[in-house]
């Protein structure tokens, strides 16, 4: 993690480095974290501590991989720190976007909305390789083909844009 990536986390979340000084180290976030069911000894607090101290956060941290945005930590935290949003910013600053996330954002750039057939097409190879197609019989009620939404491309003020303000 370079300095720019470190700074980006604060810019993206709107938190300042000193905001994490209030963390008491009570680890209640760790005790309620959903990721406990997926990985041993998960501790969101050590990410906050690293960021406060200006230390590098390891991109292999279980939360970077598995945080489900469930906000159990935020609800339990005496300060209501929005840890899932810190993790999302971490993922973004470390460019750890998944195929799905790239397709999602791609769809927004074109239509301003998530157009599911486009997502399906863009993630097709991934879905095939990872064995998702076996669930198709369960998905009949979700499947339908519809034309892209009749929305115009949004203006750079209105719609999702990249950092340079382009669509």
């Amino acid at each position, binding site marked *: 993690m370079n300095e720019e990536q470190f700074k980006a986390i604060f810019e*993206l979340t709107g938190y300042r480095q000193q905001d994490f000084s209030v963390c008491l180290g009570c680890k209640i976030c760790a005790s309620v974290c959903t990721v406990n069911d997926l990985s041993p000894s998960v501790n969101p607090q050590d990410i906050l501590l690293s960021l406060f101290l200006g230390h590098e956060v390891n991109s292999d941290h279980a939360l970077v991989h598995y945080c*489900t945005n469930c906000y159990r930590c935020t609800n339990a935290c005496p300060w209501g720190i929005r840890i899932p*949003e810190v993790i999302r910013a971490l993922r973004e600053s470390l460019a750890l976007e998944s195929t799905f996330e790239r397709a999602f954002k791609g769809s927004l750039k074109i239509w301003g909305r998530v157009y599911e057939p486009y997502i399906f097409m863009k993630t097709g190879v991934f879905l095939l390789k990872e064995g998702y197609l076996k669930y198709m019989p369960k998905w009949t009620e979700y499947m339908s083909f519809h034309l892209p939404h009749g929305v115009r491309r949004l203006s750079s003020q209105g719609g999702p844009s990249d950092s340079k303000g382009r669509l």
Partner: protein
Amino acid sequence: MDYAYYPGCSLTGSARRLDKGVRKVFRLLGHTLKDIPDWNCCGAFEYGDRKELTRLSGENLRKAKGMAREVIAPCPACSKNLKEANGDGDFRVYNPLDLFSKDFLSGLTIKRDLKGQVFTPYYGCVLLRPAETAIPNTSVMEEFVMNLGADVAGEKVKDRCCGGNRFFINKWATEKLSRMILEKSKGPILVFCPLCHMALTTFSGNERVVYFTDLILYVAGEEGTL
């Protein structure tokens, strides 16, 4: 009453059943939902940039100006993002579950009861957390089914995470989390979130996953909803 309506992306595709259900329940209650014109995606949980999320939902609220003061957004991710972008602003943003109290639903003609049946009301994450955007009554679905004579199960897992958010990234994680909820369920699982519906349905065996709106329509005498 007139509401501005924000369907959101999944309700125009994979979750069109929820869209149909919400529209019908509001129609039966004598309310009008007016679609926000040219709405754009709320960004769900896919952006690390808080400002970007606020901007996307702010844009939708701007498009709702002059339509109604009350905005309805059925998808929990959309209602959370819209509520956060609005803050203490011009609108009152609701998830339908914010409104579905006994009083609000009292206008429905009840044609069926649920005596002898068991349901598992399941809320998941974003309807209950964070506190600022959560629904005010966290037992709204339980109260509805119990008033009609049914029992509820699975209280301990109603606020657990199904992992739906990671479904197209680490499906084994979603499978493990969803199975923990399915195992504790009894009878149909009542949900309001399109992601929870998909995750739980995908990993279900004999369990049925039902949108809460479909249950409301069933007791109101609609056919083919449950």
